């Protein structure tokens, strides 16, 4: 009789912690242009390899290569560059505003700008995003007024959400931007329901669900995949794998054993895995999945491989759990630098124009901040009335809320 194996628990741990040398040697990165681009009506079972690779367009010479280089013209690329730069400048301004006490909380998307900006550029009016709090680029890429976004962050008298919602949890129906909950994962399955409704009504609109690598562990993620698999609604299921969920690396969400894209395969849903720092790859993959949805061919799951350069939020200090230099070592580079270099290679851009654009954007953001701050900040200046607190719980205010408002004396 052999001795029984003494069991031990496997708890995933990242290769490197603070003080160590960043190491991404375990991230296998194919050369740009080497991943095939199937027809949009391909059955899921025929593209399993795409869930284990990384679609990339820009090579190390900043040239667009391969089948996913779908020929966005220079004007569209410049517009994408501008959107990403504006998103980063907006984040910088709002982070500073939080440090100055003008709001309670802020979340940046530094390093992930291409994912939201490139995806939004492939959508059409009437489509609906169900974003997480790190997709502010979806609004900025549409040139949604920064003042409106800032007023929400400041919870001031101009806040379209009347001070009721935590900063950065925007809602903009007319920009196809669903109300951000703040509870993780819940909206992924709602995006599926919205797309089912579009199909039930025989409309032409598609939806996009968004979730982070960490939140794929929530049951809502799996419910979304089941329902998307069963009813084949026009939805794009976006998993932004930015490697970190606050202090938990993606291995704690199960990323050690399989890609997040591969989770779709068991449900028979086509999946792509894409370089989220390559604006051209993002746009091409988004356009592919959106066309599938639009042609009633059903859902697609896309894993966007990227890196969360900034802290999780203004309440977080990443130096406590990962090396400070780790973001510089991230092998997929910076999305803004990459697109800028590509435009220069195309002969459509220069470092001077880049500097000029940066200055213009900073002016625009500064002016917007001044205007927003004139409408108040969290602890200073005009703000939504206390009476507002009781509105909108129900369509009609029921008696018990009228009594409570009366008791408060407002």
């Amino acid at each position, binding site marked *: 009789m052999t001795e029984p194996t003494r069991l031990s628990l496997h708890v995933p741990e990242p290769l490197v912690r603070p003080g160590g040398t960043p190491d991404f040697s375990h991230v296998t990165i194919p050369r740009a242009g080497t991943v095939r681009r199937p027809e949009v009506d391909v059955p899921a079972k025929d593209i399993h390899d795409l869930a284990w690779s990384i679609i990339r367009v820009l090579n190390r010479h900043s040239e667009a290569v391969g089948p996913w280089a779908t020929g966005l013209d220079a004007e569209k690329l410049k517009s994408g560059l501008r959107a990403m730069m504006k998103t980063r400048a907006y984040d910088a301004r709002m982070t500073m505003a939080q440090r100055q006490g003008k709001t309670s909380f802020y979340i940046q998307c530094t390093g992930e700008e291409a994912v939201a900006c490139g995806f939004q550029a492939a959508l059409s009016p009437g489509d*609906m995003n*169900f974003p997480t709090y790190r997709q502010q680029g979806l609004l900025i890429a549409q040139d949604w007024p920064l003042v409106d976004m800032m007023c929400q962050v400041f919870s001031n008298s101009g806040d*379209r*959400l*009347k001070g*009721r*919602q935590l900063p950065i*949890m925007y*809602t*903009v*129906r007319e920009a196809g931007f*669903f*109300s951000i*909950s703040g*509870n993780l994962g*819940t*909206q992924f*399955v*709602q*995006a*599926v*329901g*919205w*797309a*089912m*409704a*579009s*199909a*039930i*009504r025989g409309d032409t609109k598609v*939806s996009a669900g968004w979730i982070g690598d960490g939140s794929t562990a929530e*049951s*809502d993620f799996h*419910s*979304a995949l*089941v*329902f998307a698999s*069963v009813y084949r609604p026009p939805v794009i299921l976006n998993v932004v794998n930015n490697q970190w969920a606050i202090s938990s690396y993606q291995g704690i969400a199960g990323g050690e054993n399989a890609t997040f894209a591969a989770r779709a395969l068991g449900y028979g849903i086509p999946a792509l895995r894409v370089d989220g720092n390559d604006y051209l790859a993002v746009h091409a993959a988004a356009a592919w999945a959106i066309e599938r949805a639009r042609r009633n061919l059903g859902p697609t799951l896309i894993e966007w491989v990227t890196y969360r350069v900034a802290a999780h939020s203004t309440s977080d200090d990443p130096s406590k759990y990962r090396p400070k230099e780790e973001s510089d070592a991230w092998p997929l580079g910076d999305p803004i630098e990459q697109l800028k270099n590509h435009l220069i290679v195309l002969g459509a851009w220069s470092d001077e124009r880049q500097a000029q654009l940066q200055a213009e954007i900073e002016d625009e953001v500064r002016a917007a901040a001044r205007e927003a701050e004139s409408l108040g900040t969290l602890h200073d200046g005009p703000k939504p009335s206390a009476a507002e607190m009781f509105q*909108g*719980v*129900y*369509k009609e205010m*029921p*008696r*018990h809320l009228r009594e409570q408002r009366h008791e408060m004396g407002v």
Partner: protein
Amino acid sequence: MTMVEAIRDAMDVMMGRDERVVVFGEDVGYFGGVFRCTDGLQRKYGRSRCFDTPISETGIIGVAVGMGAYGLRPVAEIQFADYVYPGYDQIVSEAARLRYRSAGEFTAPMVVRMPCGGGIFGGQTHSQSPEALFTHVAGLKTVIPSNPYEAKGLLIAAIEDDDPVIFLEPKRLYNGPFNGHHDQPVTPWARHELGETPEGHYAIPLGTAAIRRPGEAVTVIAYGTMVHVAEAAAEETGIDAEIIDLRTLIPLDVETIAASVTRTGRCVILHEATLTSGFGAELSAQIQERCFHHLESPIIRVAGWDTPYPHAQEWDYFPGPDRVGRALRRAMEA
């Protein structure tokens, strides 16, 4: 008409009137639901208006939120109220708050129907009464009918409502007005005046209670199955109880309650759900705030014991007419 037929009729009427109404849940499509509440709706309206779902309450309610936001009127069935908990986050954090947090840009009109309550030897997984878990949540309306006529009118009102509505269906009432006398046959709804259900569309406004039995001696506040138990107890004790059927817990018709207790000076509150932190506690607090100087005896609650719902001990657990009768006498003696 039975309560099952009345509920089905309400959905039928609304699906016929409004193309945005869709009905779905586990086994509700081809089969017509384990209690038959959706029987025939798929045949009549097609698979995209009435369909089966995967066994995922998170998914059922999650997609309902998305559909409601799109502009549909989803009516989701949870097979038993006991199964709703995986979908509870979608109700509490999402459906209930969407209007508020988006300042009205998005709303989640929906009805979540679920059979509740005991009396069928369903043990702990087919007998619970979780209404207080919903009445505690700002942004939800909670409805519990006690008869076919009102079940139809209330369900139509719920489907037409622009806010999310939790619609609890006391399953022991589906086929007759069960009064807690489990050893006696139940009168069919066909022989009960509230079993008579007019054809077509009618709505009973949410937020209004009904006085089932006018009386002068003591006010009994009940809803669902306990309304019929209260009627039996009043008859058997000969106490002239005024029985109020709340019908809607939120919004609560506190005027009707306060007017009655002010007049009778005595109050007994009934529910099947566990006692502690049950909806009876809320009712009791509201009554003492409004009627303290008119009270002649302490407010008494008769409820399920604070245990999980047992199986063999069904009739020891269920607050039947004997327990209610004793409570009525106590209220009169004090």
